[in-house]
């Protein structure tokens, strides 16, 4: 459903991505892994239109979305969960959910908000609290819930594990898995902690220094040695 061809991205003069290709099947979870600073987040941000200096072709459901801004990507069925459990800290949980569904008609919005609160009981308990007062895990849940308000067909998630305790990380990835099961949403997820994401992903893309260095079904990446190679050894290694 999503294909990315020859994606280059720049921050000012600095080229961050060098001809990255990705494909994602419907209702699948794909993981983009790789060491820090490899440009993983930039892949997501470029797809979503937050990085404006980008080249290459991105198609979603057969439609060219290469040059769309976030607003239009949302309309096309994408949603993005940024890094760092980013929520509107000065807004309450409920308000954040409302903002997540900013583009929806109010009746739908109210109904979706209720179901979001049901789906995330933690949030329901704290619906009138400021998001800034939530714990890191709760904020990450809220960020998911916000993105899901729009019932996107494709969810882009940027490093959900950052700053979270291991137990919470497990929970987060279970949630992602559940989202796919229940809502049929495809997920493209960027993660630095490989082990966890590999538990839920179907496909894996490995990025290093802005280049795609390997990709394949998740089974190929399950061994420790493979990962060690990916992360710790020189860049020419091929996995599949």
């Amino acid at each position, binding site marked *: 459903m999503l294909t990315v061809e020859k994606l280059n991205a720049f921050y000012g*003069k600095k080229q961050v991505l060098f001809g990255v290709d990705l494909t994602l099947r419907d209702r699948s979870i794909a993981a983009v892994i790789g060491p820090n*600073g490899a440009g993983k987040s930039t892949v997501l941000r470029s797809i979503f239109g937050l990085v404006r200096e980008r080249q290459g072709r991105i198609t979603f459901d057969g439609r060219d979305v290469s040059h769309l801004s976030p607003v239009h990507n949302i309309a096309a069925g994408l949603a993005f969960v940024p890094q760092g459990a980013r929520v509107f800290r000065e807004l309450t949980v409920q308000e954040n959910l409302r903002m997540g569904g900013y583009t929806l008609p109010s009746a739908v919005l109210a109904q979706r908000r209720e179901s979001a609160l049901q789906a995330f009981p933690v949030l329901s308990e704290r619906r009138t609290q400021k998001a800034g007062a939530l714990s890191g895990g709760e904020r990450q849940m809220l960020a998911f819930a916000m993105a899901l308000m729009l019932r996107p067909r494709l969810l882009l998630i940027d490093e959900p594990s*950052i700053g979270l305790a291991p137990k919470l990380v497990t929970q987060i990835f279970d949630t992602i898995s559940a989202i796919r099961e229940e809502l049929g949403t495809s997920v493209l997820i960027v993660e630095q902690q*490989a082990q*966890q994401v590999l538990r839920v992903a179907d496909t894996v893309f490995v990025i290093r220094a802005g280049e795609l260095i390997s990709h394949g079904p998740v089974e190929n990446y399950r061994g*420790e040695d493979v990962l060690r190679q990916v992360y710790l050894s020189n*860049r020419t290694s091929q996995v599949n």
Partner: protein
Amino acid sequence: MSTSPSSNSPLLVLEDLSKSFGGLRAVHELSFSVQAGSITSLIGGNGAGKTTVFNLITGNLGADSGHILFRGRRIDGLPPHKIARAGIARSFQDLRLFSRLSALDNVAAAIPQQRGESLLASLLGGARLKAANRENEARARGLLEQLTLAGHEESLAEQLSYGQQKLLGLGRLLATEGELLLLDEPTAGLSPGMVEDFCGRIRRLVDAGKTILLIEHNVEIVMRLSDWVVVMHQGEKIAEGVPEEVRHNVSVMHTYLGISS
């Protein structure tokens, strides 16, 4: 855990350093030391607190508790420029070049103890000032040349390519004559060829008597360059040792790579 790589007294010592932001423990009871003439690397995932450690060392942040000793003298609590003058120079992840200054000025600005660096001296002028300026500029030119930036002296920093900007950042760092260099991701964003070039330069710096503390994501480089590696996770040190040791350390696999056996 193995012992330190050499028995000399360490150049830099961090003792039980802690720093929180609000409720977030960015650095927690962190201790390690950096031996003179070595390359020590600080690794860990995003948000592990590495850059915070740099900011604590350079005085850009004040520690909540703990001490930092440089050449056996406490430097925690000193303002950043005094720490820099004591001999600790740093580079920044986002370079922080003086964008609209020429390459030459970027490097020349960093030369320590210049005559004419104070308002009064610059007003008074004089032949000695001129001579000193000439000398400093010559030095800056020399550094630019070493960094293959000859011919770009008058270009504004913002006009250089990213790779050149990284080199310029290194030039500025070297001009400070600091003994301990803190490098924050020196190879990030560089082409493979340039990464090699940088590694070579870093090695040569040590040969020339500098000491280096490195934050680096490229583990391969870390393994190749470092004499000593400190691994951080969520503000705490979870392992340290020579590269091979760290590579096989279980808890590093566990937390840093997210591999839970």
